């Protein structure tokens, strides 16, 4: 499967994401923020970092980059899209996902090995995990506090759209300890922790993140999980 990884000016984790895609058995395709086409990819990752320097708001300027017009269109047609950290912020700014990410409530940058529970394994990005699986994945953010109004939070919970939740102490003030969510269709996933940093035993807390990049993605698409 060809999985595109978009590089914006200020992206940091695009190389790690491409590497994780390869380790997951897929072909990583470099996409540039100024691109007007998606080069035939079948899924897209928006990586972490500080696109456009986090100027204005995290993800606010990236949303209007040429490639995002293509990404939004593809997402609306059902293509799997995963936004990690800054990618999650871009997906919220693009209105592909509800809510927003604000500065951590304790005002400090957090960088830790974070325990998570995978609460929805019906997305193409999480289908290799057991529902309720507890995993450890790197978390590193300054503006990772997930917020949305109560109605939106209730809807996300009621529709099973909370994909991952923080375990233990809430690391950044996210409402209802939400670490990741999906859209109604289940093809777009935003995740604040970084699975691409948890794919090897040598560096990082283990390989719990690899499941986001493995063959389950292909299986999910083949099985019509995307509707």
């Amino acid at each position, binding site marked *: 499967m060809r999985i595109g990884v978009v590089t914006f000016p200020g992206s940091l984790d695009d190389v790690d994401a491409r590497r994780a895609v390869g380790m997951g058995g897929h072909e990583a395709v470099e996409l540039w923020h100024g691109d007007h086409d998606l080069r035939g990819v079948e899924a897209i990752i928006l990586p972490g970092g500080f696109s456009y320097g986090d100027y*204005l*708001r995290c993800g606010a300027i990236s949303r209007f980059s040429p490639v995002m017009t293509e990404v939004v269109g593809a997402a609306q047609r059902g293509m799997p899209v995963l936004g990690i950290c800054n990618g999650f912020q871009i997906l*919220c*700014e693009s209105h592909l996902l509800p809510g*927003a990410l604000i500065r951590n*409530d304790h*005002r400090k940058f957090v960088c830790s090995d974070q325990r998570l529970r995978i609460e929805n394994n019906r997305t193409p990005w999480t289908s290799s995990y057991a529902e309720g699986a507890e995993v450890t994945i790197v978390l590193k953010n300054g503006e990772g506090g997930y*917020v949305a109004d109560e109605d939106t939070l209730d809807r996300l919970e009621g529709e099973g759209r909370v994909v991952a939740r923080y375990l233990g102490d809430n690391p950044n*003030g996210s409402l209802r300890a939400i670490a990741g969510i999906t859209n109604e269709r289940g093809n777009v996933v935003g995740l604040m922790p970084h699975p691409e940093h948890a794919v090897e035993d040598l560096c990082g807390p283990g390989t719990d993140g690899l499941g986001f990049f493995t063959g389950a993605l292909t299986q999910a698409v083949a099985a019509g999980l995307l509707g």
Partner: protein
Amino acid sequence: MSRVVVDVMLKPEILDPQGKAVHGALPRLGFTGVNDVRQGKRFELEVEGEVTDDVLARVHELAGTLLSNPVIEDFVVHVEGDGAPHGKHKA
């Protein structure tokens, strides 16, 4: 040339850690009697010609699309020198 000002503030119910940090620093500087601080953003737009209703409508669109995120922020548009705010936007 005219100047149109857009002030963007976090909605009251959204936590403002930066404002809290500023507020926390005030007593150390000897400032007392300040109960709360909220931090926002001010944009000054230099626009061509007169500020017509059409120009203001476009500024409102710009403010609601790029300058603010309606999920977490409200904005107010002023024409500089005019004094009167041209509508307060709450999503």
